[in-house]
């Protein structure tokens, strides 16, 4: 899996390089210089010498960046350390993903991220450990510090330039580490420290080679940090910068320079992120966000795992799919952080504006996860509005009123919500249901309640489905529960109204009519042969259903030689027939027969036999 991440990262980097090597008309550098630099991201150290050095250097770095947990105010030291989860042991060198860059001469340099336990907070720094071979083929290394926030680093990546940030790059040779804390030359290794009880001072001397164009002019030979040479060659992601545009003092190769022949030890900032780097905003927007790992998810415990899963899904462009990875890129991290922040702010706002909806979510973990997934995939203002409306609808309690008006209002609310989906199938369904409302006066309260129940169920199911994926519902699927209710449960008068009101758009010849016909062949009980038996039937019910099914017929005429048979011609030889029955089913009242719908039904003839 790590390899997938590495390939992904490599692809991104190569894409960046390719873009710039092709797009810059002012580029004066020989193309071979571009092609001759090879960057890979790897997760396994094959170089034994390097491996040993890393182990040694880790100890050295930990020592250099020692965290002083001494209680400056005289408080109990033991107590503090118990509460403090941070120790020098938390400093690690990330060997799960590191950069290998081969220069023009094929010599490799290696760059590792140094992980600090606090870098998930207000980190403004990236510290890398850079290994390279000098001209005597000796393995050298130095620490490189980029004093850049995540956002600034992303700006660098997007601009493909360190312009404006050159003075934020500094280095330190590990061999030169001093142990003189509090010296004027010593700076804080990490600029932020949220805990006032400990001071995290390092003994690392940082040198800033690119500030004020002083100290490190000329072209780097990569021999390491002494004298007037740069200790390393940062590859600004734009190669043109590499070859001397800015800062001139750092990279300018001279007016007669014709191409790269240097022994550069290139590096670029290496920074990977894990879910622990996320922060969760607090209700009070002025307070510092809480690190993800320290956050207690009181209302939504399920979000802990959900966010972890979400964070660890990394998009890999070359396979156009998501894969699981515990580490991700800055851009991906920033995108996810932005979403997480926005999502929690959405929840906080929901709690303020509509507590019952918020409470509904808190009590329905699956819905919370569905909303989370939806917003993660549809991160826009409209999506949040839709989610808000969705939660509002889902949180509506089932009403138990004896007043038909209450149901009518609720049905209007639900169906209008469906209409907001902007889907024609939903609109047809909503229009159909709304057309029934004027008939409520002639229905019993139980029938009105039943219709409301169907609408409520349909609306909730659809809403949840929409949250999960972009689907196109089939309107026939939506109306079948109402038709079924009409045929089997409603009183005759109500049933006829429900069937008669089936709108024309729902029975247009083609997909919709076919779907509806198909659904009707599942109604009732199986009969012998190609038939379904519809019990509790009346002639009026059969005729009303037939009339609705054939609203878009080419013609509806009596059979030529048997006027008691009504034939609706539906095109291509297909017919829907309404007729009495020849007493083969005792007392059957009517038959609706589908003739020549072979493609749809697989048989020449299929009958719906309406029996009392």
């Amino acid at each position: 899996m790590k390899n997938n991440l590495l390939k992904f990262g490599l692809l991104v980097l190569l894409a960046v390089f390719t873009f710039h090597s092709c797009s810059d008309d002012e580029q004066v550098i020989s193309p071979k210089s571009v092609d001759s630099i090879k960057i890979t991201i790897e997760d396994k150290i094959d170089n034994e010498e390097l491996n040993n050095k890393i182990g040694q250097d880790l100890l050295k770095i930990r020592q250099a960046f020692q965290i002083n947990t001494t209680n400056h105010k005289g408080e109990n030291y033991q107590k503090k350390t118990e509460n403090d989860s941070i120790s020098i042991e938390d400093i690690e060198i990330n060997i799960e993903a590191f950069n290998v860059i081969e220069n023009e001469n094929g010599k490799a340099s290696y760059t590792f991220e140094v992980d600090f336990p606090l870098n998930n907070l207000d980190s403004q720094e990236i510290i890398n450990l850079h290994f390279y071979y000098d001209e005597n083929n000796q393995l050298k290394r130095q620490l490189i510090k980029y004093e850049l926030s995540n956002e600034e680093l992303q700006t660098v990546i997007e601009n493909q330039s360190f312009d404006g940030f050159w003075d934020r790059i500094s280095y330190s040779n590990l061999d030169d580490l001093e142990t003189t804390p509090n010296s004027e030359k010593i700076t804080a290794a990490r600029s932020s420290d949220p805990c006032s009880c400990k001071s995290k001072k390092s003994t690392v001397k940082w040198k800033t080679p690119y500030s004020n164009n002083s100290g490190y002019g000329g072209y780097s030979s990569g021999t390491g940090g002494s004298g007037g040479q740069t200790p390393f060659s940062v590859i600004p992601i734009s190669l043109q910068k590499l070859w001397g545009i800015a800062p001139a003092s750092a990279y300018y190769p001279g007016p007669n320079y014709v191409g790269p022949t240097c022994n550069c030890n290139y590096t670029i900032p290496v920074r990977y992120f894990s879910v622990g780097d996320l922060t969760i905003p607090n209700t009070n927007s002025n307070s510092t966000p809480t690190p993800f790992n320290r956050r207690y998810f009181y209302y939504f415990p399920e979000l802990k795992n959900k966010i972890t899963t979400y964070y660890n899904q990394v998009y890999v462009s070359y396979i156009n799919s998501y894969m699981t990875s515990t580490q991700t890129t800055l851009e991906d991290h920033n995108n996810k952080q932005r979403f997480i922040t926005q999502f929690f702010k959405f929840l906080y706002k929901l709690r303020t504006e509509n507590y019952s909806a918020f409470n509904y979510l808190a009590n329905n973990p699956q819905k919370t996860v569905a909303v989370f997934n939806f917003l993660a995939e549809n991160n826009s203002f409209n999506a949040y509005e839709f989610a808000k409306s969705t939660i509002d609808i889902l949180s509506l309690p089932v009403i138990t009123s004896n007043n038909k008006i209450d149901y009518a209002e609720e049905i209007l609310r639900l169906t209008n919500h469906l209409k907001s989906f902007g889907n024609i199938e939903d609109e047809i369904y909503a229009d159909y249901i709304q057309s029934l409302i004027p008939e409520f006066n002639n229905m019993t309260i139980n029938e009105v309640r039943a219709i409301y129940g169907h609408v409520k169920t349909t609306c909730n199911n659809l809403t949840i489905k929409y949250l999960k994926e972009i689907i196109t519902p089939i309107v026939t699927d939506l109306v079948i529960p109402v038709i079924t209710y009409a045929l089997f449960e409603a009183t005759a008068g109500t049933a006829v109204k429900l069937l008669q009101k089936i709108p024309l758009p729902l029975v247009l010849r083609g997909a919709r009519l076919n779907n509806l016909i198909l659904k009707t062949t599942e109604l009732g009980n199986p009969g012998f042969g190609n038939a379904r038996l519809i019990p509790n039937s009346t002639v009026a019910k059969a005729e009303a259903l037939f009339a609705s099914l054939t609203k878009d017929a080419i013609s509806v005429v009596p059979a030529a030689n048997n006027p008691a048979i009504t034939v609706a011609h539906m095109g291509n030889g297909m017919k829907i027939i309404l007729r009495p029955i020849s007493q083969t089913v005792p007392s059957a009242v009517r038959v609706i027969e589908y003739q020549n719908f072979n493609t749809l039904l697989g048989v020449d003839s299929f009958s719906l036999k309406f029996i009392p």
Partner: protein
Amino acid sequence: MITINVFSTKYNGVFHPFGIESLYHLAVYIREKNIDIELDDLNTLTLEVFQYLINNNIIYVLENNWMKNKELNKIKLSNNDLIKNIKEKMSSSKSMDEFYDFYWIKYQNWYREGLENKGLNVYTIKWNEFINERIGDLEKWIEENKPK
């Protein structure tokens, strides 16, 4: 030349009194059992089964206006004339669909009631199971039970 044994499990659905309603439906049933059958063969087989059912007094053909007057009267034709009539119509027809308006049938009361007494009802769809468990030899049962 296709021949059929109407009492075989493949075809014995024609004896279910709540299934087939007309000559058209009988033809549809037989075509379902012989998907690629030519129209001439289909006509022949349909007529063969139809004759068996009529000659054994299992069904009768209704007057053509039965749907209108709602009386299930027997058509006023002898069996021979009826068969002759059907044959003539078949010879000039291009599709069994043309028969939809004609030759609606009703299973004789003795037959349907006899089966109902054995437990058959409109919801009986496992016909072979019913025959095996309740009737046994259907051909023999018909011989024994049909009006003498």
